[in-house]
């Protein structure tokens, strides 16, 4: 009989919920056998199965926790952003400042808390890494907090255990480590937390032989090493895009990913908001794009290039660009992508130095990490040591190396050789299945800590809520290892900073502000090292099909795989959700036999073919997706999918795991990939929310239909109307309705929309929008109230890209209203197109008659009424829609009404002042592309924008008189460069 591995049982355990299936499995002889193979010393206890008592206790407690714990504020004193917690008024939310980190680097946020339940995350306007903007991952963290699939108890070999049991089990290991030193290893992700850093140093001091490894699948090793080569020592580069007139991006996605991208997007776009009579000049962005990046989609000149060509370009930029750069010495930036090898970063820094940018548009500071290392080498070292039997005990703080370590490391085999292995992580994931002890990790909103921003600014991370699922913070684990068993994270963090000279006021102020003012790392004088000679040219031979591995724009390295919001979020450029595909250029598609008519037949049905991609003898089967503007001969794939364990959302058949073809010497892929279409397979459905027009230029009606208005800055200066006159009067058989008091309106500046999706998730969180799953999305039933339309213009080989966020237009002559037979949708007196959910019978006529198709229908009972954990997450001010009801963007009417009530309470003039209310999308937008306000208030920003010459209404000829309108896309191409090639 075939030997079953634990993996098989994991599969078997799917669906049933962990405890029950373990119980069943425990009675399964094969399982015992398998366990004995993997955990020889632990064969016995499992045979007992799970104690029913524990099971019942656990289930009930988890329910209780979800419901009740949600109402406890943590015991320690936390400080609200606007008012004291003592002054908590039932029904009124409080805001607390804290910070959320990705890849160790944090950005400040404000968290809205309803009666002690965090419900919404906003950027912190005072924090330099956010300036009030937030991205999809930050917004979705709220769902991550309540996620019922998070690990909820300490487990020993999958069995329910206790924290104290873990500590007990830890003691012998520590004692052993104390005595003979070596053998104890710590594996963490990137750490910028000064407190945790100090604690770890303490730990290392306490156990001389101990070693500390760091590993992060999406690491910035290339940048670190590149800068080290350039400046001889680990440093951190901070960019000031607001000072740059010319920006050259070498495969960098600085607008959408990486530390400080929110700030960078704000700074960069601050030079692209063209206002009539005010804007004298625009900045200019040249982008060499190896995939389909948001940065590329905003560029004035974009060239698709193979990753291997970047180094050559870095060493010799095209003359026209160099000219432009020279002309802007000290006011330009050349920036390389994180995936580019160190040498490219070195070269680029040298170039910046030569251009006098360093010190002006680029600041070099000390690293933000507490202990910068080459994480790849660090992990390699760990694996080698394990295989050499030098590792007796391994404690992992966060991370999921079994899933995301380079394929050639065979980490999971190595791991099982370690006699004692413990992991602290938020989910019971692939790695957890192979450790002896698993401790649930707190969510960033549950525990105390501190973190540095992209420029080193320190924020104190304060919890919004007591841990929902018995989570433990890394401070506790490290603290416990040091010996301070009863030391709470609060004590650790507080102690650290008071030792650094903080006092009660400053502490309160830091908490209140969400940052330690002036803690940004100071600029550092650096001397550029001599530029190393050009290597053997393009790395790893530019020949053949090139595999290009990228972190997923939504679920990053896979850590967000169980977050339904992010899973269902259409990816910024491809508009695909719920899976990863292989992106190829139209030409490459033809070359490999996936030709146009084959494609256009499938693409209508949002389907495609799959292909077997073979790289270094390893094969992955991926759906092919043709991406206009994608470099030829390159195959872009996203990491993070194909999880085998780690939550109900993440696991069942969601995407394909790319890590098996990611090797330590080709972390972002390389040449030599082979691709073969899978024959004899019927069309493979892809959950893509927008496809047709991109595939067939003939169908691209954006221009003819005046959906997109675009022009160059030069043209704008000649004709600020961009060639369009508002020739549509608003003739009507009836006199227009007069709006005396407020007239809410929105203007969206398409010039500065990066398509980052922050607004989409913000809307989802604010308005309790349900997710529908891949099949339903593929049936075109997604529920997002706000979508970001993406249009292409020009040749599919390298088209211009336009992003157009489309919320409800709130038409004054709303076509949806007169056709509703039951008055379920009608106009409010301040001009909102309101939905009365409980009056809706669901004829769907309104949706048919909506020219913008912004109405969304509950074809099934999509909303999750049952999961207790999700109930406290919802915004109490917004109804949860039931089956058979039409829903749509309301301009966040709950916020509008709250503001109006506040204004009334002020008495006197009862008008809401400009800026007192904004919608979730506008608040989230990192580039402030969305502006919301009162059109009747002539001093409001929105009123001013409505006066802009480039301002236009979508489908104005229908005389719907939309309240949501747009500013045309204005770009600033270099007149000396003809075309984009």
């Amino acid at each position, binding site marked *: 009989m075939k030997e079953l591995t634990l993996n098989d049982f994991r599969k078997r355990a799917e669906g049933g919920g962990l405890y029950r299936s373990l119980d069943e499995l425990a009675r399964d002889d094969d399982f015992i056998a398998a366990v004995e193979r993997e955990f020889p010393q632990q064969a016995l206890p499992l045979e007992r199965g799970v104690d029913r008592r524990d099971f019942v206790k656990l289930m009930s407690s988890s329910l209780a926790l979800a419901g009740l714990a949600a109402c406890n504020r943590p015991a320690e004193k936390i400080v609200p952003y606007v008012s004291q917690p003592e002054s908590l008024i039932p029904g009124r939310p409080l805001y607390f400042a804290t910070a959320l980190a990705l890849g160790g680097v944090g950005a400040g946020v404000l968290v809205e808390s309803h009666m002690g339940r965090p419900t919404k995350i906003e950027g912190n306007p005072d924090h330099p890494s956010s300036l009030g903007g937030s991205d999809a991952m930050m917004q979705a963290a709220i769902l991550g907090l309540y996620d019922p699939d998070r690990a909820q108890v300490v487990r020993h070999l999958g069995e329910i255990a206790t924290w104290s049991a873990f500590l007990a089990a830890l003691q012998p290991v520590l004692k052993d480590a104390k005595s003979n030193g070596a053998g104890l290893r710590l594996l963490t992700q990137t750490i910028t937390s000064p407190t945790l850093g100090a604690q770890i140093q303490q730990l290392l001091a306490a156990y001389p032989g101990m070693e500390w490894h760091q590993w992060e699948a999406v690491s910035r090793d290339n940048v670190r090493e590149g800068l080290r080569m350039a400046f001889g020592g680990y440093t951190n580069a901070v960019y000031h895009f607001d000072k740059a007139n010319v920006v050259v991006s070498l495969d960098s996605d600085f607008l959408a990913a990486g530390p400080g991208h929110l700030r960078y997007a704000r700074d960069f776009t601050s030079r692209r908001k063209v206002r009539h009579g005010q804007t004298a000049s625009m900045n200019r962005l040249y982008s060499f794009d190896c995939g389909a990046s948001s940065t590329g989609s905003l560029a004035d000149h974009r060239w698709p290039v193979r990753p291997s060509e970047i180094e050559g370009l870095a060493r010799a930029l095209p003359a026209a660009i160099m000219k432009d750069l020279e002309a802007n010495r000290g006011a330009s930036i050349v920036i390389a992508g994180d995936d580019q090898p160190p040498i490219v970063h070195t070269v680029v820094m040298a170039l910046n130095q030569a251009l006098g940018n360093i010190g002006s548009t680029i600041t070099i500071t000390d690293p933000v990490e507490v202990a910068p290392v080459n994480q790849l080498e660090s992990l390699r070292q760990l694996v080698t040591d394990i295989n050499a039997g030098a590792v007796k005990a391994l404690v992992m703080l966060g991370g999921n190396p079994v899933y995301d370590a380079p394929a050639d490391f065979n980490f999971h085999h190595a791991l099982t050789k370690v006699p004692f292995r413990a992991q602290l992580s938020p989910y019971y994931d692939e790695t957890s299945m192979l450790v002896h002890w698993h401790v649930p990790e707190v969510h960033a909103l549950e525990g105390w800590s501190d973190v540095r921003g992209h420029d080193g600014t320190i924020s104190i991370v304060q919890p919004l809520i007591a841990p929902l699922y018995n989570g433990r913070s890394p401070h506790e684990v490290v603290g416990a290892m040091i010996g301070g068993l009863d030391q709470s994270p609060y004590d650790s963090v507080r102690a650290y900073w008071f030792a650094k000279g903080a006092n009660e006021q400053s502490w309160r102020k830091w908490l209140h502000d969400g940052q330690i003012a002036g803690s940004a790392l100071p600029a550092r004088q650096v001397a550029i090292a001599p530029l190393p000679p050009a290597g053997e040219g393009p790395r790893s031979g530019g020949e053949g099909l090139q595999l290009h591995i990228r972190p997923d724009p939504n679920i990053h390295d896979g850590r967000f795989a169980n977050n339904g919001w992010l899973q269902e979020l259409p990816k910024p450029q491809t508009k695909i959700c719920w899976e990863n595909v292989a992106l190829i250029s139209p030409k490459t598609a033809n070359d490999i036999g996936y030709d146009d008519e084959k494609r256009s037949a499938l693409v209508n049905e949002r389907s495609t073919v799959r292909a077997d991609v073979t790289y270094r003898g390893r094969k992955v089967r991926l759906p092919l997706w043709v991406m206009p503007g994608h470099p030829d001969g390159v195959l872009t794939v996203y990491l993070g999918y194909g999880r085998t364990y780690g939550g109900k959302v993440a696991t069942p058949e969601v995407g394909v795991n790319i890590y098996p073809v990611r090797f330590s010497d080709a972390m972002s892929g390389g040449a030599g990939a082979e691709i073969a279409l899978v024959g004899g397979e019927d069309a493979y459905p892809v959950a893509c929310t927008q496809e047709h027009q991109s595939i067939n230029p003939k169908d691209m009606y954006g221009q003819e239909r005046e959906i997109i208005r675009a022009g160059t800055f030069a043209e704008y200066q000649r004709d600020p109307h961009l060639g369009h006159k508002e020739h549509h009067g608003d003739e009507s058989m009836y006199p227009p309705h007069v709006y005396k008091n407020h007239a809410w309106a929105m203007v969206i500046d398409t010039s500065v929309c990066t398509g980052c999706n922050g607004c989409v998730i913000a809307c989802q969180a604010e308005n309790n929008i349900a997710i529908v799953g891949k099949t339903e999305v593929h049936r075109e039933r997604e529920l997002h109230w706000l979508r970001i339309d993406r249009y292409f213009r020009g040749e599919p080989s390298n088209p211009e890209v336009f992003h157009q966020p489309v919320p409800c237009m709130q038409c004054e*002559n709303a076509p949806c209203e007169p056709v509703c037979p039951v008055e379920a949708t*009608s106009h409010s007196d301040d001009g909102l197109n309101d939905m009365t959910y409980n009056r809706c019978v669901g004829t769907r006529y309104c949706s048919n008659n909506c020219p913008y198709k912004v109405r969304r229908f509950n074809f099934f009972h999509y909303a999750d009424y049952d999961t207790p954990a999700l109930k406290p997450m919802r915004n109490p001010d917004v109804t949860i829609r039931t089956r058979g009801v039409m829903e749509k963007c309301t301009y966040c009417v709950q916020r509008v009404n709250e503001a109006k009530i506040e204004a009334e309470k002020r008495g006197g003039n009862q008008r809401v002042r400009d800026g007192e209310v904004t919608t979730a999308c506008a608040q989230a937008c990192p580039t402030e592309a969305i502006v919301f306000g009162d059109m009747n208030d002539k001093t409001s920003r929105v009123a001013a924008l409505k006066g802009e010459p480039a301002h236009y209404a979508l489908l104005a000829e229908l005389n719907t008189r939309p309240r949501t309108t747009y500013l045309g896309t204005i770009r600033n191409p270099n007149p000396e460069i003809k075309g984009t090639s």
Partner: protein
Amino acid sequence: MAVGKIITGTYGLIAEFTNPQELLDAAHATREAGYTDTDAFSPFPIHGLHEAVGMHATKLPLIVFVGGIIGGIGGYVMCWYANVIAYPLNIGGKPYNSWPAWIPITFECAILVAAFAAVFGMLALNGLPMPYHPVFNLKRFDQASRDKFFLVIQSRDPKFELDRTWEFLETLHPREVTDVPW
């Protein structure tokens, strides 16, 4: 018509004919003979027969017309009351009293009520439903819905005298004459 004349025994005398022409002639003859309380029964409508049995016009068209007017006004008023008085809402920027949108409903209501008036008016005027009627006592009357034609002279007719009327009917060459009991 004669009032207070006591009728006993029979409802009237009935003559059976085999084709519509005979019936029509007979009806006319009866009328000329001065009988007033007569009625004729046929399996299908016969032109002019109603005049022959002394009936000239019906109020039905008037009833239907009135019904139509009431329905139309009612329909419009309903729309107007509902969307202007009871619960005025700004619907797509249209005025509360958007009369053009209410024409279809006004029209339909007019038709509906008029049709009701026509049907129930007809039934009422005909005194239907009427489960019992003396003529049904006649054995052969079931042929009236097949291919036989009947002419009845009621006993309450002022000129009615059993034997003389019987003789008169015989002169019309019917298939047979019989009396209809109550």
